[in-house]
């Protein structure tokens, strides 16, 4: 699957529907859906919120890999921002010190089996994989 989405949270539902279709079409294990939905949303929202210098659509690509899925999100004509370098979140901090900021990318990094960032010609591309593990 390869499709572009406008830079609006209103498009999250369409992304979810397309992901559901792709999982069904390719017979991908549904136990991966929550992780994939969450990572796609967090990365898409991050691009919409922080790459404000562009109005180009965001490209989402999905393909099957052994026992799972590989997903890429590409943002065009933007500055470099590597989500894999996102700051750690102290999940043991007391309530008074906890803030919502940073949790999204932290969760992506926790949930992905692998994650890779590329930046070239002002194109920012993040690719992650999720596979069914033997322990799942």
């Amino acid at each position: 699957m390869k499709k572009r989405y406008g830079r609006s949270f209103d498009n999250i539902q369409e992304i979810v529907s397309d992901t559901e279709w792709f999982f069904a079409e390719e017979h991908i294990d549904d136990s991966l859906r929550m992780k994939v939905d969450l990572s796609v949303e967090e990365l898409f929202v991050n691009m919409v919120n922080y790459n404000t210098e562009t109005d180009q659509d965001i490209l989402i690509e999905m393909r099957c890999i052994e026992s799972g899925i590989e997903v890429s999100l590409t943002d065009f004509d933007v500055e470099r921002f590597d989500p894999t370098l996102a700051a750690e979140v102290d999940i043991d901090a007391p309530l008074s010190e906890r803030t919502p900021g940073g949790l999204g990318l932290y969760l992506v990094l926790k949930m992905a089996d692998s994650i890779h960032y590329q930046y070239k010609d002002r194109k920012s591309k993040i690719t992650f994989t999720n596979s069914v593990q033997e322990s799942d």
Partner: protein
Amino acid sequence: MFEIEFKESGEVAVSGRLDAAQAARAQEVLDGVDGRCVLDMSALEYISSAGLGVLLRTHKRLMGGEEGLELINVNKHIADIFRYSGFDKLFVIKTI
């Protein structure tokens, strides 16, 4: 589709998908809650960091009055998200 409503029991029920597109609506409703609040998540299918932010902001506000948000009927997938986020140490959580 996301829904949030007050039940006759006084609990607040959420259902569907609490994502970045729905977080503002959830926050608006929960901003109107005072005192101890029980959030029934039995029909909640999905939550992202935007939804976690809603829960965290509401919990911190209610804890200021020494009350708080209690999360009940949490499914396994969402319980995993809470555990990854450290929310299992911040909230009273009852799983299904």
